[in-house]
């Protein structure tokens, strides 16, 4: 069935209006008044029963993270909002911060009350510095509101300086401590030893808003969406060869085919799910691939490519991105990224035989095992999924 752009947009908007949790206008002061009255166990029960998993991409259950931090005995604990949105193809956190910062702050305050934190930090990527004046004003007002409510919790804003790796939670902590943004070995996890060695919860912008909405609705609406493994909804950033591009909140669990029917231009040959660190799904797998933790997980990045695009250019763009953004501290990632770039160039220019691609796939698999953090580990995702599905485009 072929739909016009207007029909697609109407369908997408209807879907979004049905979900509408992240961008719904609420009175955050009413919600905070409710939060102050609720006991922490009740709120934790809401979060637990919601089945919410982190919306930054890694998908760790939010309840478990908060519960681990709550159990720590410490004089200081911290809540950090990871607003270092840098994954290629992701731009939803920017809009959430621009339009719903009070809901983000409320999510942080709820977490702080539950785990016993008195300070919260927003780590905003430097590319979004235009948001600093707005967020500073909103944050100062919010801090005053918390004082009035009698909650010992203050927010602070920190800016990044153009390093993708700082979206990795331990690299983010290093950066906040005034160091190079190099990932730490885990364990210890940040919930045990995080910022300045203290128990720290780090959540993505969107996750924090869902927490606020789950508490507001006492579980409620969120749970009615999604699948058993991928509960709830998710904000998607849609770009590329699409009739409809932009930021949309949709239920989890739809297939790529359903997604492409709604957003695509009718000629979609591949969808890159989860950005440069995510997976490429070719047309032949659209129908059977579910968007969610049971299929392809995503922090929200959905890039559509039609049949005019060269998958070699796309892969090269991702690899060069990773090569530049690799922090360089561990050899598998630093050297691996360089060799993958050089390797596919050599094959393209016939300086290496096509079979060399199999060696590069082995290298990518080694990087998945041997790299220290998520950056190096995930380079294999785009590499293998593009090479295996579009081998001829890489070679010829």
């Amino acid at each position, binding site marked *: 069935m072929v739909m016009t752009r207007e029909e697609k947009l109407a369908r997408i908007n209807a879907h979004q209006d049905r979900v509408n949790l992240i961008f719904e206008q609420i009175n955050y002061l009413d919600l905070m008044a409710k939060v102050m009255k609720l006991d922490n166990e009740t709120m934790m029960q809401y979060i637990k029963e919601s089945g919410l998993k982190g919306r930054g991409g890694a998908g760790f259950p939010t309840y478990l993270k908060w519960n681990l931090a709550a159990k720590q005995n410490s004089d200081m604990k911290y809540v950090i909002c990871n607003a270092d949105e840098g994954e*290629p193809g992701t731009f939803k956190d920017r809009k959430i911060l621009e339009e719903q910062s009070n809901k983000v702050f409320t999510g942080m305050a709820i977490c702080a009350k539950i785990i016993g934190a008195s300070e919260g930090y927003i780590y905003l990527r430097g590319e979004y510095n235009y948001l600093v004046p707005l967020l500073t004003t909103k944050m100062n007002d919010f801090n005053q509101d918390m004082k009035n409510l009698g909650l010992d919790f203050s927010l602070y804003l920190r*800016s990044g*300086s153009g390093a993708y790796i700082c979206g990795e939670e331990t690299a983010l902590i290093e950066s906040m401590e005034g160091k190079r943004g190099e990932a730490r070995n885990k364990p210890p996890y940040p919930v045990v030893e995080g910022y300045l060695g203290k128990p720290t919860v780090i959540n993505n912008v969107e996750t924090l808003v869902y927490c606020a909405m789950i508490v507001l609705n006492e579980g409620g609406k969120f749970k009615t969406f999604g699948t058993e493994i991928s509960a709830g909804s998710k904000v998607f950033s849609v770009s590329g060869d699409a009739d409809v591009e*932009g*930021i949309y909140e949709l239920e989890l669990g739809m297939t790529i085919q359903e997604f492409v029917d709604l957003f695509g231009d009718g000629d979609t040959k591949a969808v890159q799910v989860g950005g440069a660190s995510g997976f490429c799904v070719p047309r032949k797998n659209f129908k059977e691939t579910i968007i969610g933790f049971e299929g392809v997980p995503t922090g929200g990045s959905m*890039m559509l490519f039609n049949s005019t695009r060269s998958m070699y250019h796309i892969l090269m*763009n991702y690899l060069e991105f990773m090569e530049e953004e690799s922090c360089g501290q561990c050899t598998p990632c630093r050297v691996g990224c360089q060799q993958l770039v050089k390797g596919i160039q050599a094959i393209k220019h016939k300086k290496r035989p096509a079979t060399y691609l199999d060696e590069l796939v082995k290298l990518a698999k080694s990087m998945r095992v041997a790299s220290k953090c998520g950056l190096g580990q995930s380079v294999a995702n785009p590499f293998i999924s593009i090479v295996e599905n579009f081998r001829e485009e890489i070679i010829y």
Partner: protein
Amino acid sequence: MMQGSENIVRKAVKTYGRSRENLLPILQMVRREHNYLSEDQLRDIAKEMDLSSADVYGVASFYSFMDMQPKGKNIIRICKTITCFMKGKDSIVGAIEETLGIKMGDTTPDRKFSLLEANCIGWCHKGPAMLINDKVYTELTAEKAVQALEEYM
């Protein structure tokens, strides 16, 4: 210059405090007020904060927005990531290069502009996109890009 730049360092350290976790905001402020981070300034920061200057250099050189060489008063960063590339980022680069008479990576002789590429700046649905300093410009055409520059001429 020396005297002035030392003052900026003192001011930044005074604003944020001497503890280590304030190093990034301090570097960012000195970078903002002085255009770039000179080796002298990095040594001054290290001294003020009682850190090794190698350590401070290591931190500053890690971050792509912490310029260590003199830059133009206005920094243009054109997104080169895939969707902006697909939507014609190269023609935007070409138009700006022609208007300013410089190549990618260079600074104009009058020190008004530096032209750089950036990895994904978060406007993929409205590409091609660029930043001039902190301001965002989206859905660029060659004409729109050149017009944007005129605001800073």
